[in-house]
């Protein structure tokens, strides 16, 4: 058990800002933690809470959701809708005992390659500190055997 725990993190990002920001981080040769798998979507308004649940269901230890800063949305207000949704969704997760610390949200513009790299590093570090999402993984394991009533 000498190897440090490497968290698996899924990032849902919007194509116009955060994905472009990630691209910039890449073309600027910035190094950041390799723990994040990016899923590109047209807009944060497209991101359903089901995506987040699906990521956890498939064994992610953390989820990152990121899009354009308020006012910058390519579709003018997709991110405002998303913001409301997340506010409600976070409090729901909190109430049901899924640590909101595992689901992170951020605004990253196409010009913020540096912020993207820093954020990935800090999020990875945070999730690593929380450790694997064992409680949820136990439930996932359970699904390998037939359900009992």
């Amino acid at each position: 058990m000498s190897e440090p725990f490497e968290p698996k993190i899924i990032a849902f990002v919007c194509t116009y800002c955060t994905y472009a920001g990630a691209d910039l981080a890449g073309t600027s040769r910035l190094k950041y933690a390799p723990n994040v798998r990016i899923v590109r979507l047209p807009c944060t308004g497209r991101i359903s809470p089901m995506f987040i649940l699906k990521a956890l269901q498939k064994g992610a230890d953390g989820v990152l959701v990121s899009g354009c800063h308020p006012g910058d949305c390519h579709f003018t207000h997709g991110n405002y809708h998303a913001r409301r949704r997340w506010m409600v969704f976070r409090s729901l997760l909190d109430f049901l005992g899924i640590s909101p610390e595992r689901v992170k949200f951020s605004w990253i513009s196409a010009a913020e390659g540096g912020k993207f790299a820093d954020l990935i590093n800090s999020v990875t570090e945070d999730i690593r500190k929380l450790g694997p999402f064992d409680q949820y993984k136990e439930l996932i394991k359970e699904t390998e055997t037939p359900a009992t009533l």
Partner: protein
Amino acid sequence: MITQEKYRTRVKELLANNSVKMVIGYKQGSTADRRRPLFVRSFEEADELVLDSNCIGNLAGYLVTEGLLSDEKRVGIFLRPEGIRSINILAAESQLNTEQIIIFGFDTSGREVKALQGEQAGDFSGLIDSLKEKPPEKSSDALLYRIDQMNTEERFAFWKDEFSRCIKCYACRQACPMCYCRRCIVDSNQPQWINTSSHTLGNFEWNIVRAFHLAGRCVGCGNCDRACPVNIPLRFINARMAQEVFESFDHYAGTSQTQEPVLASFNKDDSETFIL
């Protein structure tokens, strides 16, 4: 009793002059303190109508039965204040036209039943506004208090225990007046978001999704909670969502038929503290 007689007479009156094609009310149920829905189309059926403090179910959901309102005839319905709020939400979501709905409003305190003034959904706006003004009751429920005191891990363990009993019968969905989607997310298998088996994992996800879809729409009628065959305290989850939208967006579900659905609208100044 007086209210019951008054409403029976009114129902007959409306049926007699063809103002309504049907009235949805309550009748005697399988035990003395249970009431079941009654669909009144004739005078004889009107005599079966019962109205007392045991009439607790929210009947609003029957109005969105496919085809019921499509002939543009009017339908009467017995509703408590929260049922009237349901009607407002359904109207705001373009599921029905309130002009087609004749409301027999009633409320109970203890064993007493009192009639509410008005017959159209708009007539009750004063009443609903006064409900909003009342501070949301700090629940004296011991269990809810206990959940609030728990840390994240204890909460997870608590809900895991509750949801492990869920058998995915979807009675909560069927009983809910707000769950009218023709194709529910759990009925679709392309993509399949939630496993169909009743493993705790999928039960967790189902209950998260259900609560989320009801955020800002649930009026707390308690239909889901009463329908649950394994007694999962669903009311707490819905109440927490209602509290969240009330505190964050000053949204009280069902105040009017023109109210914007809270998660389909936004305010540029919505303030949060968690986005990095």
